[in-house]
């Protein structure tokens, strides 16, 4: 089975019933994608599948055959930070960092389709990503700063 991950074609050895999260973390060693709950409630494992944000713990690898996956490792190709990554650093939106990859990818997918959101829309967009450190304040500000 072939899956395109961060622009590169990968031949996957794990069985079809393995979750996308397990393939990323344990087969491909792309450990930037985190597992916070395993039940799709926290968003820490968010990746993009054809540009759409999904919880990779709820997706089986067989479901994404032939699709294009973007993980946090693919968000800054050639080492240039995405404006969201830069904003998260400069606005102080990163604390423990465990939710950060998932929030960044959710925000990217959201802004790609909705470049000028209101604060309320940003909050709704990231409501599936739990963060326990920041109180969301600086995360929302960072996303808004890129949007405007």
């Amino acid at each position, binding site marked *: 089975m072939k899956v395109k991950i961060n622009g590169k074609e990968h031949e996957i050895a794990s069985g079809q019933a393995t979750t996308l999260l397990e393939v990323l*973390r344990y087969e491909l*060693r*792309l*450990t*930037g*994608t*985190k*597992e*916070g*709950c*395993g*039940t799709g*409630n*926290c968003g*820490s494992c968010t990746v993009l599948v054809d540009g759409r944000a999904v919880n990779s713990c709820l997706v089986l690898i067989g479901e994404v055959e032939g699709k294009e996956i973007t*993980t*946090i*490792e693919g*968000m*800054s190709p050639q080492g240039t*930070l995405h404006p969201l*990554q830069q904003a*998260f*650093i*400069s606005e*102080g939106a*990163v*604390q*423990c*960092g*465990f*939710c*950060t*990859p998932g929030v*960044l990818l959710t925000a990217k997918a959201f802004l790609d389709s909705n470049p000028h959101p209101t604060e309320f829309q*940003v*909050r*709704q967009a*990231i*409501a*599936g*990503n*739990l*963060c*326990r*450190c*920041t*109180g*969301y*304040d*600086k*995360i*929302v*500000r960072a996303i808004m700063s890129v949007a405007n």
Partner: protein
Amino acid sequence: MAKYSVVGKRVPRIDALSKVTGAAIYSGDVVLPGMLHGRVLRSPHAHAIIRRLDITKAQAVDGVMAVITAADVPGYKIRNPLLLAEMAHLPQDKVVYAAQPVAVVAATSVEIAEKALGLIDVEYEELPPVLDVLESMKPETPPIYPDLYTNFIARPPSDKDSKPSNIAYHMSISRGDLEAGFREADLVLENTFRTQTVHHGYLEPFAAVASVDTGGKVTIWTQSQGVFSARQMIAEFLGLPLSRVKLVPVEIGGAFGGKSYLPLAPLCGLLAMKTGRPVRMEMSRDEVLRDGRPAPGCVATIKMGVTKKGRITAASARFIYDAGGFPEMSHAMFVRGNVLSQYKISNVKIEAFDVLTNTVPVTYYRAPSTPQSHFAVESQMDLMARALGMDPLQFRIQNVAAEGDTTPSGEVLPRVGFKETLEKMAEYLKQKGEIQGKNRGRGVACGFWHGAAGSFGAYVHVNTDGSITLVIGVTDVSGSRTSIAQIVAEEFGVPMESVTVVVGDTDTAPWASPSVGSMTVYSLSHAVHRACQDAMDQLKRLAMVRLGVEASQIEFADGMAKVKGNAEKSISLAALGRSSLGFRGEGPIVGRGSIGGLPAAPSVAVHAVDIEVDKETGKVRVLSYVVAQDVGLAINPMSIEGQIQGAVTQGIGWALMEGYVFDRGKVQNTTFLDYRMPTATDVPMIDTLLVEVGSSTGIYGLRHVGEPPMVGTLAALANAVHSATGVRMKSLPMTPEAILNGIKKAGKP
């Protein structure tokens, strides 16, 4: 803050780049060749005697490399297991809470390990669980442990009449004449308040990886808030000297007090010793919620007397904390020093208890014991102010303590910005104006946190290119690396980029207390400051020779050692660093600093929250939230704002939605779907007012920061609900259902 060039600036975290790119390594990301996988068998019962524990079938499974039970733990042969605190407790004869680990398997795959768990044969004889603290305290209730006496764990007190008890700890303090104080009052009110068991909710589940070298030395990667305290605990569990255990620091995905507990690492180390191979263990979220030690619920009764003019004449308070199944993590202990310390009260009595039940044992969570105690104290303050017809903030300002006052525990208060912080909030609210609108209300609360101080060491290396490397043994749970790097840059007069902070392992870093009690930056900065001074003294000795002046005439700025008042005469740190290694040099420049025995620098945080209650559904919407906090001096305002905003959001969760649901002692809500925590749509932007009344004991005057902003949140929200609805909520969480019930009851004649 023109006084400083790096301290006081909004500096981005030095660990942020590795975190936004996914490069940061957490415990669960560590992989070693030939790694086995460990899994835990947990008790299905809250209280049961183990009649038989047979592991032979599990051991026989192909791919199973080891199965361990309490009989295999070397530490249990040396010390009473009750004294091996804050770790997994494998039961020797009985289980005391549901989900207690009973046996552990290491196998070549997760699947095989899980299959083997199912083949472990345990015969339990169920005992009636003790589930309620008030029931548990009664003398007629059978004690959970036959060898546990109040304040004497695992050893009977000398008093022969003492009986084993479920009250693990009891403390009582008093000052003045309580009865006289209440007689002096014009108004006396007494209320009982209840808080529930809640979880820290860190996003990263527990994980550990352990390996053993050919010499038998155990190396462990795990997310501990204190690598040196973890080494001590694991060494005791494994029966090894400290020199044979090494803890390697990793990034920590949220801790908040909950990750001093080691549910996996000691077991993982023992499996590695048994098998001779690396072992990895990880908890599911379900396991984290069932056995990842939450914060205790509390029953608090408080009685307070005031004069008509609003002076508090007396107060008595009693706090009963639910310790769960183990006595090791006292919360009652923290009541001393943290309760009613922010007010001037001449006659006061405070009692606190840790009481055992057959529920999940607890641990510390952001200002341990204090959000619970302040829910009672600050709700009561609001009720007193209402009864007097006084503004609740003015009532607090009138009674607030000052430097030199004696707290209920007998401590004389150092300088704390109580009045400044309350007045800052009063001024802010005056500008903002009264809250307008139907079903809307404002609540205020004043939180106090005494704080703690620890023992820390620091090494500062001046490199031959003039850059500085700081080596510490402190895991970063609050942005401490960044704040400390700012201090190093400030001291040496170099830019932030010239400073590298290395968090070393327990073999290479200087000893450090765990990152708890909001003490890390406060205490560590002393050690780091001393290490910087030590290194700068060495640089001055080299510079004296090169510049031909006395050491006292040399200052450090712009990466140079300069002669004061003579801009022409200077030498770069790089040149000095290089010369230290030359044949005329004194050897490499290594600054060393240590600190211990520092007094705490207490902190105050005043909260104000505006809410709206939907009268149809009972749901609370938080409209705006502001915290004024005395931080002493803000080393990094952006970082402090983040600490306050995070703490408040945790507090909002605690007050409005979170809470363990138990059924006969077993936790029922074990996913984030039914253990609901605040999302981005549940909270507003959280405003911060940083007050800087310098402490007399902190470097640059800094104080404890991370925990204080949690303390007042619960009462602030309950006070706001009262203001919006006229209903006083004395139990948490204030769910829509609970508030609707309150409104309905209030509507009845």
